[in-house]
């Protein structure tokens, strides 16, 4: 599968690395998923890839080396082969051909989170990323999402701090709802907003929030950030 721009894939790999330097690749014939879970198991990023593999395969990948490789390439081809994930391409400057083989390691890793999404609203990425830029600082401890009346109100709260911002929703399916997520994932959320034109906000059960981005890339279908959430009192 050929791609013109490896940047999107590099950003997604960086997102995965923010949670864990290790990610697990799972392929069940027509469905291939790459996901990483952070150490406290409060967040997971699930990347649905457009990769086809003839047999069921899976294993853990060590990602950091992949980011620098993707950044130095101008175009690349990704495939799932016997030896693992293989990336072929040409470097930006010298146009030299490059082949990177990433072995699938048999290592203990948390399972793929099972999420039943229930979409609450969709927001436009640009304004969403802008809000997160403002709220991404060390004093904001939690982000409160209030969805309803055609808007998403994001409030950053911390000891002695309360910053509220409001953006309109493209569409909204459900009754007004309020939940909080830990603010230390604002950075990953902002990266997701950078690679997707819109973000769907969903709940997956009472204590999960799911932010999904539809990525305009040949090798990726969608990226979902699953976060532990709690009701806001």
């Amino acid at each position, binding site marked *: 599968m050929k791609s013109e721009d490896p940047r999107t894939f590099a950003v997604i790999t960086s997102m995965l690395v923010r949670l864990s330097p290790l990610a697990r690749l799972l392929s069940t014939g027509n469905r291939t998923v790459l996901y990483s879970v952070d*150490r406290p198991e*409060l967040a*997971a990023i699930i990347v649905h890839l457009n990769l086809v593999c003839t047999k069921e395969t899976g294993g853990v990948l060590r990602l950091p080396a992949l980011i620098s490789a993707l950044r130095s390439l101008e175009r690349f081809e990704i495939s799932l082969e016997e030896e693992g994930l293989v990336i072929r391409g040409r470097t930006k400057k010298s146009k030299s051909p490059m082949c990177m083989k990433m072995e699938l390691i048999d*290592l203990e890793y948390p399972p793929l989170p099972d999420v039943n999404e229930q979409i609450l609203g969709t927001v436009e990425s640009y304004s969403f990323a802008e809000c997160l830029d403002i709220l991404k600082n060390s004093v904001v401890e939690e982000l409160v999402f209030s969805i309803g009346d055609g808007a998403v109100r994001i409030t950053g709260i911390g*000891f002695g701090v309360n910053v509220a911002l409001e953006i309109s929703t493209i569409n909204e399916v459900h009754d007004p709802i309020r939940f909080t997520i830990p603010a230390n994932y604002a950075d990953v959320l902002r990266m997701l907003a950078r690679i997707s034109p819109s973000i769907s906000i969903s709940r997956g059960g*009472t*204590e999960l929030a799911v932010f999904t981005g539809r990525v305009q890339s040949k090798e990726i279908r969608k990226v979902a950030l699953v976060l532990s*959430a709690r009701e806001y009192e």
Partner: protein
Amino acid sequence: MDVATQRVRLWNALFRFLKKSKGGLLEHMLLWFVESKRPIKVNRMSDYVMDSAFNYLNDNKVRLRYRPLRLLVDSGAYTAARRNLSLDPCRIIEIQERLGADIVIPLDYPFMPNMDLFEMRKRLLKTIENTRLWSEVMSPKIEIMPVVHAIGKKELLKTVRTLAEICGNSKYMGIGTIIDTTSDLRGFLGDRQPRRTLIDSLITSMEVIKEYGFGVHVTGFGSSPLTLHLAIYLGVDSTDSSGYRRKAAYGKIILPHTGERYVGSGKAKFGVVKPSPSEIEYLRSRCGCPICRRDPYLLWRDWRARALHNEWVIKATRNIGLRLREEGLDIYEHYLDRLFANSWLGYLWRYAKTRIKYTNIYRC
């Protein structure tokens, strides 16, 4: 009025209020004060005391030089591992019995930096083997506190289950070196540095250990008021403090809320923050410790006086922490928000709070 004075006043008011409202010590979290062959106090009849068999290895006549309320005797495994020494399990058992321990920690084999996985697994098996030996030969009057070391979450579950089978009658289980394979293959937590990964390992291990009905013992969290508050907030059942005497030996005293101050002879080269005039005034007129009530200038002259002062501050911190936790987690959180606001450990507090407030995504 400066910030330090304000904090001291708040602390004093809170302490008086809690003393009036309930009084007495709470037993929700055991706090073991580390003593050795040169004790700070001989009469320890109201204290939980921890000692190490390592201190008595070369003694022909093993004898306790103080009288504790309850005595926990460690094997000294970590000190031995750092010095690359090998200890004889039979000698450790003999010392622990002769000291008249109430609780003993079997000789374990902690993981050290740069150890490969094969070596770690070998040490893990030896630790379990020793725990079995302790449970077989130790007098039934002496309780055994097994220590968990693990590589990965699956192994943590397996090890806790095995130790629970061996030491079914024990009340507490200690947390040793836990390596998380999902984040870092070289992860090492034996050094107890205040990192976020330490909080993660603690919470994960505590969840597993508590599922088996054991209380959790975490080494070293009683050394400073801030780490002690963190331990209480996280729900640790038992911890120890050697910092109260180590700091005193280095010329430092602990002040409630404001941290450590240097009152030694002037030879220290790092961490030298001398007490401000308002802090000296606090020590002279308001500190409730037995040394400051008699003569606060003893702190400048005698390291034992400093140790006694530090011990008093740690005990008072524990009482305040336990009472506030009992009043409600939100009340305690608000108190700790203010306490950690200007501390360099603030990041650790905010992280611990997030970990407690939010549920693991697999349990949602």
